[in-house]
């Protein structure tokens, strides 16, 4: 068995026992990157030398039980600031941006002894559901290189699935951790809004964005989440509340006895491909045999979720992206004659097509005369969507549904029709509007496509431990989906 076939938790134990050194683990990942990267294109930059130096320094100090990620090679989505390492957000406008500080989440991973290998590809400014909107290159699905890895954290999903690293950070604004986790056959969790500091994250939709891990197993995700969660005075939306022992909660769950799983009819009705339905139904049978009680629940405003989400997200994006003006950082067009020219030329040449589309739409829905009809209305529906979850959770402990109605789609299949691309997020976005935690767990391969199928578990606010534990029990029953066929 190769080092890169270990789970993050298994690696931790081997590192702590000094069976494997941090340098050996890092070298194994770098070799795997060399072998698989030509196929998947998961990374935008690789910091091999720095990673080896960090690993060597860790080896000299020796394993530290207080550092949960001691010697663990990881990747970070390129939307997160990394000191001295380019942070492009997969956009030409930030192509030359090298931050002089780390995002809090990255800083905490490093403090826990993680070895950062490189920056993962993504949709430009996290806008997209396929990682085809990167200004630099599309990432391909390790299970089938003609398929997308999902987006916008597709590089993070693909790098973990291809065994290039043991975990990667992603960001989830409308499902951008869970969709690539589902398409790539890995586990990904979007924490409760406010659980992880957003300081140092290039903002897309500030009331929606959350940072979370993608890794092989629920336990691996729990370990990474625990390392980076918790109050940060640099982010006023980050909650000043204690972080539970997620790893212990996750390991403690061996079965699902006593757990009530809500089954929303809106997620289990028409529209699912037969192979997704079969894999998810099988997973729910497994849940039942583990002792769970399945209860029907209703989320009646789900039908409005996509429209609500895109109005809110585009409005916030148009506001957040106003900072890219060619003055303080990023790309500046050389031909500007005056300040207005500078703004317009820099933004028009620096942003890609999807980003421009969302800025224009966001500007429109916020503009005088349309604000009430679009943005205020969407904010009202947002409250109703959130209330649906609160009502449903009065009857159950977690909610389950497919992560996506289909498995990974073909490269180029949806790029010409933005609305079709937006509809890919149908099962993920309600959770971001509500600020609740959600996790995608691979529950098998589709019978027709041989591609991974993801099952989502939603939790109450601050109860990440409950969904991680439930996912861990299910993972034990359903089993691992194995090594991706495309890079085996």
């Amino acid at each position, binding site marked *: 068995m190769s080092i890169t076939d270990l789970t993050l938790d298994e690696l931790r134990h081997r590192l702590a026992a000094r069976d494997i050194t941090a340098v050996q683990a890092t070298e194994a990942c770098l070799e795997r990157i060399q072998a698989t990267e030509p196929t998947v294109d998961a990374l935008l930059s690789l910091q091999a030398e720095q990673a080896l130096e960090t690993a060597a320094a860790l080896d000299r100090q020796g394993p530290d039980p207080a550092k949960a990620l001691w010697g663990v090679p990881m990747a970070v989505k390129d939307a997160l600031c990394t000191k001295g390492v380019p942070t492009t957000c997969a956009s030409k406008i930030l192509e030359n941006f090298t931050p002089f500080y780390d995002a809090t989440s990255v800083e905490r991973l490093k403090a826990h002894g993680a070895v950062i290998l490189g920056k993962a590809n993504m949709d430009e400014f996290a806008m997209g559901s396929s990682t085809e909107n990167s200004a630099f290159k599309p990432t391909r699905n390790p299970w089938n290189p003609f398929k997308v890895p999902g987006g916008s954290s597709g590089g993070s999903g693909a790098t973990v699935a291809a065994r290039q690293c043991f975990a990667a950070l992603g960001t989830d604004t409308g499902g951008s951790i869970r969709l690539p986790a589902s398409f790539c056959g890995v586990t990904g969790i979007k924490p409760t809004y406010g659980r992880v500091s957003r300081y140092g994250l290039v903002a897309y939709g500030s009331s929606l964005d959350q940072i979370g891990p993608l890794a092989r197993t629920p336990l691996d995700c729990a370990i990474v989440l625990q390392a980076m969660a918790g109050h940060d005075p640099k982010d006023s939306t980050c909650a000043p509340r204690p972080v539970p022992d997620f790893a212990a909660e996750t390991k403690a769950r061996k079965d699902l006895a006593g757990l009530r799983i809500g089954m929303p009819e809106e997620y289990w009705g028409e529209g699912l491909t037969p192979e997704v339905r079969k894999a998810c139904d099988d997973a729910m049978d497994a849940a039942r045999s583990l002792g769970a009680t399945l209860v029907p629940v209703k989320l009646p405003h789900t039908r*409005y979720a996509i429209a609500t989400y895109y109005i809110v997200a585009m409005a916030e994006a148009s506001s957040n992206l106003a900072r890219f003006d060619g003055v303080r950082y990023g790309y500046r067009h050389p031909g500007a004659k*005056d300040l207005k020219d500078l703004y317009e030329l820099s933004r028009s040449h620096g942003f890609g097509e999807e980003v*421009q589309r969302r*800025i*224009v739409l966001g500007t429109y829905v916020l503009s005088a005369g349309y604000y009430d009809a679009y943005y205020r209305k969407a904010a009202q529906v947002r409250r109703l969507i959130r209330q649906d979850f609160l009502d449903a959770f009065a009857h159950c402990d977690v909610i389950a549904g497919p992560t996506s109605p289909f498995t990974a789609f073909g490269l180029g299949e949806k790029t010409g029709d933005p*609305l079709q691309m937006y509809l890919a997020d149908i099962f993920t976005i309600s959770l971001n509007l*509500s*600020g609740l935690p959600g996790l995608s767990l691979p529950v098998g391969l589709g019978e027709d496509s041989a591609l991974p199928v993801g099952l989502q578990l939603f939790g109450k606010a601050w109860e990440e431990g409950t969904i991680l534990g439930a996912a861990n029990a299910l993972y034990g029953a359903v089993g691992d989906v194995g090594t991706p066929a495309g890079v085996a």
Partner: protein
Amino acid sequence: MTFTPDQAARVAALARLRLPEDKLEHLAAQMGDILSYMDTLTACDTQGVEPLYGPVEHDTPLRMDVAVKTFQRADILSQAPESDGTFFVVPKIVAG
């Protein structure tokens, strides 16, 4: 919903984007489709519903109102496309 290239150009200008003619038509058509889809929200009864602008569940923690130097000027200016070592440099904005 119909959205004209002229409308698209006007909104783009508000967003400080300058789009070529051939792209405006395409963008206008896409905006029309997307906004029509957004209009499904009109069917949702929101009478008396308080808007929810964010899911933060805690009070914003306050900090002491004390100025702290977080970064060095040189670090910040190092990111600028053009600076004179003290300020950001931009094209002339006053005529004459």
